[in-house]
């Protein structure tokens, strides 16, 4: 089997056994990046030299008995560009940080390194993770490897596109309102947004601190469980990271000989009002089929009505933008990042550096956040949204007292055309209807492939569970993946030479060039 055809765990095993050298693995992916990424734009920065040097270092350590407990030692990884990497530019796809070289690495990155990960580079994303299509990146849009005229989703679109096109075996992303799950769905991949607090946010460039979580994107749930295990854990440097034990998510992977045992008797709720108007019919059908399969294998599947779902997106955008306006006030051109060269005084330095450095969507969200927090509007908007958040949490608590998990769509549509929605912010925001409740309530969710549209585009679904119930989700998802092969399909661009057929990327130029 070719290196790039393996899952991350399969590759880790071959490296451990000595059949594949760490350098060979890194080279296989770096070659793919060189071949394809000119037409996909999944990476903002490729750290080729560092990756090869690191590969040799990990190889040597492995040969001396190092990384004893890691199943992913030597396996390459792509890192979303909002995770700080010491010595490597971390821009969050923004002009304001396009020269920022962090003096430290994020805890999740450090933990991956401690397990022998070899970083290939930093992936493209919506600027400051604000968007669902990777079109708001300062470094230009990213194409979907299944059809490069379409978006890869977002905001972790580059991470997903890199994995889908075989330019990384797995990637780290972040999820504030669906940014791991929706790109996973658009690219035929599996992604986990863990319970809030499971993964330290130290070194993650903050967008909305009470919603942000880091998580894995990979080809299957086994890989995701192993990666999540590796990056989770209490961290003194993030006061919201939680003490929770154990983190051995891989123990929940179903028995390949008897996957049905993992789901037998499991109570699964289908929120009927998530399958109504607005949802693409092919997506509905694919998810209902998945639920029927789980039912036929022994799960107890039941429809119910999830209350207050229509209020999740409005509450989400008020809260996320409020937190963003506060978090992004740190970018002022003083200590790091872009500083304007045309200011006359300190105040102008702030104004001009920010105005030149931030893109349109970021400015829009900062302005909206400033509005909902301003005196006179605070109660009607921000306070109200926090109360609605509490209502949604209450209804989730009630749902999970009755069900082990619920199955819902991830996105109302499959991957859409680049440029198709970006001009209408309200339409863009409303597309987050199925994902944002998970962030508002802090619960975990797995996004996984469950079919293909008539146009050949991947369809995803999500399994949502109660806080700290990742194990149940991993059980069900791994059982489902034993019974189906949607997660094993690859786009034509995945194959070696597969990029030859791809059209040249449009919209690749930096947005500043517009």
């Amino acid at each position, binding site marked *: 089997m070719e290196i790039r055809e393996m899952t991350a765990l399969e590759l880790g095993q071959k490296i451990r056994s000595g059949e594949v050298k760490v350098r060979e693995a890194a080279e296989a992916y770096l070659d793919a990046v060189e071949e394809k990424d000119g037409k996909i734009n999944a990476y903002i920065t490729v750290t080729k030299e560092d990756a090869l040097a690191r590969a040799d270092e990990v190889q040597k350590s492995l040969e001396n008995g190092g990384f004893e407990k890691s199943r992913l030692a030597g396996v390459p990884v792509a890192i979303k560009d909002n995770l700080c990497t010491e010595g490597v530019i971390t821009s969050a796809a923004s002009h304001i940080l396009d020269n920022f070289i962090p*003096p*430290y690495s994020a805890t999740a990155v450090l933990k991956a390194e401690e397990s022998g990960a070899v970083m290939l580079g930093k992936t493209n994303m919506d600027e400051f993770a604000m968007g669902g299509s990777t079109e708001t990146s300062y470094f230009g849009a990213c194409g979907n490897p299944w059809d490069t005229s379409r978006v890869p989703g977002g905001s972790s679109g580059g991470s997903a596109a890199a994995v889908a096109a075989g330019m990384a075996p797995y990637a780290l992303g972040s999820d504030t309102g669906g940014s791991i799950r929706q790109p996973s769905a658009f690219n035929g991949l599996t992604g986990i947004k863990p319970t809030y607090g499971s993964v330290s946010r130290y070194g993650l460039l903050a967008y909305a601190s009470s919603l942000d979580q880091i998580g894995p994107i990979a080809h299957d749930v086994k890989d995701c469980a192993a990666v999540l295990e590796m990056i989770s854990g209490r961290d003194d440097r993030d006061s919201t990271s939680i003490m929770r034990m154990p983190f051995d998510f891989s123990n929940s992977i179903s028995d390949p000989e008897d996957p049905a045992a993992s789901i037998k008797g499991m109570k699964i709720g289908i929120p009927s009002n998530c399958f109504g108007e607005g949802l693409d019919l092919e997506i509905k059908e694919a998810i209902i089929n998945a639920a029927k399969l789980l039912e036929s294998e022994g799960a107890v599947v039941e429809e119910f009505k999830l209350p207050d779902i229509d*209020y999740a997106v409005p509450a989400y955008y008020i809260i996320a933008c409020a937190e963003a306006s506060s978090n992004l006030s740190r970018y002022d051109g003083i200590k790091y990042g872009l500083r304007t060269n045309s200011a006359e005084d300190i105040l102008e330095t702030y104004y001009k550096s920010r105005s030149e450095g931030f893109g349109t969507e970021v400015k829009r969200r900062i302005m909206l956040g400033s509005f909902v927090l301003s005196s006179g509007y605070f109660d009607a908007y921000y306070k*109200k949204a*926090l*109360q*609605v958040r509490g209502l949604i949490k209450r209804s989730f608590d009630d749902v999970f007292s009755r069900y082990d998990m619920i199955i819902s769509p991830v996105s109302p549509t499959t991957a859409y055309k680049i440029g198709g929605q970006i001009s209408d912010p309200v339409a863009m925001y409303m597309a987050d209807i199925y994902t944002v409740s998970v962030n508002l309530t802090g619960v975990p969710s797995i996004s996984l492939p469950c079919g293909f549209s008539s146009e050949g585009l991947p369809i995803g679904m999500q399994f949502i569970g109660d806080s700290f119930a990742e194990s149940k989700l991993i059980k069900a998802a791994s059982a489902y993946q034993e019974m189906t092969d949607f997660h094993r399909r690859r786009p034509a661009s995945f194959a070696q030479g597969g990029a030859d057929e791809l059209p040249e990327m449009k919209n690749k130029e930096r947005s500043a060039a517009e």
Partner: protein
Amino acid sequence: MQINEDLIGYLGDLSRLYLSDEEKRTMESDLTDILNYVDKLSELDTAGLPEMSHPFSEVNNFREDEVVNHDDRERLLANAPEKRGSYFKVLKTVE
């Protein structure tokens, strides 16, 4: 909720952003659209309900208040747009 030019100017000041005339016009109509949409929340009666600002707000995660040095000065200054010696250099802040 209708956003007008004055409010856009005020929000620009709160946000420390200069907007071009075109940006102001777009921002005015975009924010109006967004607020009309989020006004949907007013359909819900939330009087007296608690505000949920955080998934696990009841958990306090304190550590010992010990002084530790994380980064040395040179590393932190390396990203400075302008510096003089071991200081960040900025434009005059007081008259």
